[in-house]
Each structure stands twice: as C-alpha cells, then as structure tokens.
C-alpha cells in the first residue's frame, strides 16, 4: 500500500516538475525581462498559490474541470471520462499549485544576470534565441535547478489540493500525504509514523542535495561545454 502510494506520488511529482520546467522557463524569462505595464498582474496571479489555502485553489480547479464547466465538458468529450478525480486532474491542479515554486527562483536568477552581458551578446551578432541559449540559460541554471527541485518537493508533500481534486482513490489519486491522513484517521499511528518519516527523509534528501550542488560556483558546475 505504501509502495503504491509512493510510486504514484513520485510519478506525479516528476510529471508536474517537468511540465513546470517547460512552462516555467519561458514564463520566468518573460517576467524577468518584460517591460509590459501589466506585468504585475501576471506576477500576482503566479504567486497566488503561495498565499491561498489549498482548499480554495482545489475548489476552484475542481469547479473548472468539473462537468459543469466548458473545460470539463470539452475534456470529457475528447477523452471520454471527466477530469475530476483522475490522475490527469491531479496533474493539472498540482501544476497550478506548484507554479510559483518553479517560477520564482528561475525569475530571480534570470533577473540577476548582468544586462551588459546580454547587450554584449547582441553586439557580437547573436540573436535573442542564441543569447537565451548561451548566456541566459547557463547563467540562470542554478535558479532553474532550484525551481525544478522545489516544485518536485512541493508536489511530493501537497495535500489539500489533491484531496479536493483527486479524492482518495488507491493507485489513482491516493498520494503519500493522503495515505498518512488515512492511517491517522484509522488510528494506525505506527503506520502513519513510518509513512511520515519516509516523506520527511525524501524531502530532506532532495533539499540537501540541491543546496549542496548550489554551494559550488554556478558556472564551474554547470559551465557550457
């Protein structure tokens, strides 16, 4: 039971953090360099999951993907079953919930890059794409790595959103944190303790590895070859 919940959780965290890598990098790049006046609006939306109770976020996502919303109806028409209370639904909710944890470190490290380096790249004839690949991404890599690991770890431990959107279906939506909740409800404290300890160790190991890597100078470890 614990193994099933663990693999489910790891699978969810991996898929979510990879999606956030793909979505987060361009979004963070835009937030770091755009001079649009309405940028603050996007920044506020991205950060909302940090302050919002997971139940509120989960509730709205549930409504949005439910059979009464256009999105939910469209999904059901295409796939054949509703999005709510499925693994795919969990992925949608978790991506939204962990978005700020991926985007913020990336944005910070992109914004910290000396603009003169970008100017210099352009003056040497490089297009914006080439400047992004050869200057922005390598120099911002520590932030990208942090964003990836934080969104992974954050998804490992989420509870409220999962419960609201996914419910508690073994093998489909029952993640480790839900399992702990179940075990406590059943007064099986010994099992709850083992599961909780596993999650604690996993999250700690991830963060320790991340910060150990970041201690080294960014461009020595991640230098472009």
């Amino acid at each position, binding site marked *: 039971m614990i193994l099933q919940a663990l693999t489910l959780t790891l699978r969810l965290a991996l898929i979510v953090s990879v999606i956030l890598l793909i979505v987060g990098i361009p979004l963070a790049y835009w937030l770091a360099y755009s001079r649009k006046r309405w940028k603050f609006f996007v920044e506020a939306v991205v950060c909302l999951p940090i302050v919002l109770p997971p139940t509120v976020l989960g509730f709205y996502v549930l409504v949005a993907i439910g059979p009464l919303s256009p999105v939910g109806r469209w999904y059901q028409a295409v796939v054949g079953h509703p999005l709510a209370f499925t693994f795919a639904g969990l992925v949608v909710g978790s991506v939204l919930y962990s978005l700020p944890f991926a985007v913020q470190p990336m944005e910070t490290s992109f914004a910290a890059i000396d603009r003169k*380096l970008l*100017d210099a790249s352009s003056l*040497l*004839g490089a297009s914006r794409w080439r400047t992004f690949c*050869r200057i922005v991404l390598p*120099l911002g890599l520590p932030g990208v790595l942090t964003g990836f690991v934080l969104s992974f770890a954050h998804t490992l431990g989420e509870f409220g959103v999962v419960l609201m959107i996914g419910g508690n279906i073994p093998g489909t939506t029952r993640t480790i944190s839900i399992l702990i909740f179940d075990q406590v409800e059943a007064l099986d404290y010994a099992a709850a303790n083992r599961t909780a300890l596993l999650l604690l160790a996993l999250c700690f190991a991830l963060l320790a590895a991340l910060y150990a890597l970041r201690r080294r100078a960014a461009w020595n470890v991640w230098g*472009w070859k």
Partner: protein
Amino acid sequence: MSGEEISVRIRKSFGGERGAFGLDVEFSAAAGFTILFGASGAGKTTLLDCIAGLQAPETGRIAVGASALFDSSRGLDVPPNRRAAGYLMQSLALFPQMTIAQNVQYGLDGLARSERQARCTQILQAFRIASLTERRPRDISGGERQRAALARTLVTRPRVLLLDEPLTALDAVTKAQIVDDLRAWNREQQIPILYVTHQREEVFALGENVIALDAGRIVARGSPHEVLQRPQSETVAQLAGFENIFDCAFVADHPEQGTMTCRVARSAVNLEVPLSRIDRARPVRVGIRAGDILLASGEPQGLSARNVFAGTITALEQRDVMVIARVNCGAEFEVHVTPAAREALELQVGGKVWMVVKTYSCRVMQA
C-alpha cells in the same frame, strides 16, 4: 571596405527626475582614432549606445560608409546584432561561464570551426594573450581582461569600433601597450574608432582628433592642442585643468601693452589678462591653472608679471606630492605648490603671502 567614415546626426531627449537632458550632436569621423571627451554626464555613453543600437535616438541618422544603421525619416532602426559595430563597454562584459577562447569565438557563429579557431588564434596573438585561451575571465588580470574583451570585439571585424573608457583603470604602461596593439591592428582594418574618455592625459596620448561634449552638445572639435590649450568654453576649460575660473567684468583696454584689465566679480581684484577678441559689453570668464600661480613670502620686486596680490591662506591640504592652498586676496584662488615650497615659505593657515600671476597664465573666455 577600408577607410569608411561614420556619420552621426542624432537628437535624443530625456525627461524625468534628472531634469531635462538632451543629446543633440552632428559629426562625422574618418578611419582612425577620434576622442570623445567630456565630463561624466555629458552624454558620451548615451551617444555610443545610440550608435551601437542599444538606445534609439528620437530623430536623426547614423551611417557607416554608404549603409544607414538608423534613419528616423525612413523609420529604419537596424537591431544591434546586425550593425557590425564593435562596442567595448566600460564593464567589458566578458561571459563569466566561458573560457577566453570561447568568449573570443562567440561572435564568429556563422563561420566554419577551423576558420573560427584560426581567427581566434590570430587575434589572441596580436593582443599577446594566446596563453590564456583556456582560462576564465575571473582568473586573469585586469589588463588581460581588457585585451580579451578587445580581441573578442575585433575578431568579428566590425565596421566601426566604440570604446567606452576601456583603459581608464589601467596603469600607463599597460595602457600604452594596448593602444599600440590597437593602432597596429587598425593600420590594416582602417575603421573609425570612437574613444570615449574624461581623462586629459588620454586625450593627448591618443588623439589625432578630439570632439568635446558638454551637456549633450559638441562644444569644441579639433586636435588635442586646439581643443585643450585654447579652450573657448568653460566646460572644456574645467576639463583642461583650470582650477580657478572667475566671473569678471571688462574694465579697460591697454592695446599698447597687449593687455586688458578685468575685475573679478564681487571683489576689488583687477586682473591683467591678454588682449582678447571678446564682446566687452558682456561678462567674461578668466581661467587660471592652480599650478601657474607663484607664491612669495615677501612683496616681490622687479617682476615682469602684472598681477601681484597680497592675500591670506585660508586652507592648506596635502594630496600626494602636491600641496593645495587656498589664498584669499579679495577673491579666493586655488594654488598648487610642492611640499618643499611649503616648507621654504613656512606656509600656514592664516599666514600672509604674495601671489603672482603672469598675464599669459590667464585664459579669457566669453561667459
């Protein structure tokens, strides 16, 4: 391709907090060094940014040879990566994650690998840093970094080279070597080099051609000698090292003596200055270098100098091997003497001294 000329005619204004500031210049520069000289805030860097395409002027035209880089009348604004303008910024902006060789080859993207390496090796040898190819920017010295950044810019064979105080931080010897290497390089390339500086010594060391900028406008242009030794404007005078600049009123002409008398504003001090072609009805300014003023402990006799004043020392300060004295004789003068002179004359604050200023040490400018 060789011997192209850059022509610039731009206007750009800045509103906002720092007060209205406008850049309004028109000049052209042939192949070889042209010095852009001015105090900080004169608009030098903005001008280079506009030429490189990092900032856009409001109106005007920038062209190298026959090809326009910017032309407001045609709505043309070539992006910086297609201007072929080599721009060495003050911060150098070497890419920290790359080795020197990778930095230098960065701008050679379109070339075959072998060609890239050949050109990289050649330019690194020309600038004497061939041994540094595998080092990273933070592992080499300041002078080496300047050479690497210069090599990275020049290896792309730009059509115009923009240098923003690139050598300011270097010692004189290193600076002279780099400039020699740059001159040698440009004997073959023959491109216009715009060299921005606020240092007088650099102007004399480098310049065939000087353009003096003040508050976004060109105030003088010519050889270093013409611009700095015969300043027509107060800005250039200050830059050229006139520590004393007095607002004066014209008093009398003495054509037979080749002099005229001007009175320093709000004082009774009359200065004998060279007879100059100025508008006598308008206020004038007189500039005197602090090092051109003589001090004496007693009243000097039998001098050719026309300006002799008794005064009191109000301040004394030693800076390196120079003593800066402020002397009040009705107007306050800054005077530079050697520490030896201070001892010999027993100079001290509150003490009496005589000040001697030759007529030809006074530079007359129209205010």
